[in-house]
């Protein structure tokens, strides 16, 4: 067995013990307030760095949570404002587009954890802090506007999102100023809005929002599904309008409203007030 380190006799060990006991007793017999003050000073040396670091990281985590909540509230208000503006426009025009005011659903904040930078990257991975009852086709938005839709659910807290730049993406849109309807589709590196008649009133800079019309497609399970985006979410602004002589529809190019980057907060719009309500609203 290894004995005491060289140079430390049993008497030396006892002396160290006596010193420690003495120091402890001095601390114990200090008056109440002095004891707390001494603890505070000693803590400032021994444990303050640790607590500073820990509080910093705790703050980071809680700030992200609070930020998500605030962004969600803000975006909800913006959506309500947009919906109210649409209704007012409908009333001013004297005729709406005969669509239901889509329910905004529940906004579940998520973080973009993977965003490939490749030219052909059309997907991002998002992570939710809480398990969500998400499914394919649910719309994904950020504060600027529409981003894409849930493509593949990896797990209760992770999913891959197909961006609007994906080749087979299609979205029913509406010109906010006039109430005209159209279909947005990507064309290479730009977006085009089709199905708008050549005589319709479309101007450069017009705001384009989602129309709430769902394009149904056959999914691999053999069922029909589509992007269930509520009406009124900003999609972009008209960049250019052309009217070819031999076409019945306008050629409308769109500047998308939303871009997303890594570590950004995005929102999945959960469709119904089901179990997702609790999860989405949980702080």
């Amino acid at each position, binding site marked *: 067995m290894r004995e005491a380190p060289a140079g430390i006799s049993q008497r030396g*060990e006892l002396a160290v013990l006596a010193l420690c006991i003495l120091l402890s007793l001095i*601390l114990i017999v200090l008056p109440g307030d002095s004891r707390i003050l001494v603890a505070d000073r000693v803590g400032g040396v021994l444990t303050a760095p640790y607590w500073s670091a820990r509080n910093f990281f705790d703050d980071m985590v809680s700030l992200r949570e609070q930020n998500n909540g605030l962004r969600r509230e803000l975006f909800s208000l913006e959506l309500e404002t947009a919906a109210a503006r649409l209704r007012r426009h409908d009333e001013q025009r004297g005729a709406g587009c005969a669509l239901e005011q889509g329910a905004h659903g529940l906004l579940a904040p998520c973080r973009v954890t993977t965003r490939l930078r490749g030219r052909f990257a059309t997907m991002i991975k998002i992570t939710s802090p809480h398990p969500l009852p998400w499914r394919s086709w649910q719309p994904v938005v950020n504060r600027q506007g529409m981003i894409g839709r849930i493509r593949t659910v990896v797990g209760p807290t992770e999913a891959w999102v197909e961006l609007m730049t994906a080749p087979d993406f299609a979205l029913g849109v509406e010109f906010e100023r006039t109430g005209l309807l159209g279909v947005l589709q990507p064309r290479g590196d730009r977006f085009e809005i089709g199905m708008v008649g050549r005589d319709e009133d479309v101007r450069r800079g017009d705001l384009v929002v989602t129309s709430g019309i769902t394009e149904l497609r056959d999914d691999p399970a053999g069922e029909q599904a589509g992007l269930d985006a509520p009406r009124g979410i900003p999609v972009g602004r008209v960049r250019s309008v052309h009217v070819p002589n031999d076409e019945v529809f306008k050629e409308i190019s769109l500047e998308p409203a939303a871009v997303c980057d890594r570590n950004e907060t995005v929102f999945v719009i959960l469709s119904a007030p089901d179990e997702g309500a609790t999860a989405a609203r949980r702080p």
Partner: protein
Amino acid sequence: MRDFLRINVFWFLIAFVGGVLAAPLLEIHGVAPDFPVISLVVLALAAGSYPATIGGFLLGLVMDLSIPTLLGVQALIDSCLGYGLGRLRTRLAYGMPLVEATVVIMAVLAHDLVFLLVRNATGGEPFLWLFLTHSVPTALYSGLVAVPVLRLAVWLGLLYRED
């Protein structure tokens, strides 16, 4: 010198990283292993009375900082505990997990016994109830967790064996 550093880094990691990160993860119904005491046992068995006395004092002092009204109590307890464990080191049957676990269990119980008695004397808290419902499960859990920790220390060559 190298052994001195390794031992100190190891017990420091067990005490603080274990206490801060591992203990909350291992907590069962409010009972978590007492990593500071486990680390003190490791230090005492690895380095002897002299370092364990000082280590125990510092460890107890840091723990006291969270209860300033009892400043010095755990420093006193852990100093004595470190000294006693260091002295015990030469009398233990090494390499037997049951023995090492028993040492940890006894150390946790001794620490809590004195601490709760002092706290009972100053604050009038129910000593026996706390000791039975908190200290005993903590001691058993700590003994269980200490076995792999001490095996790791042996594997790292921190606990010296000559037989």
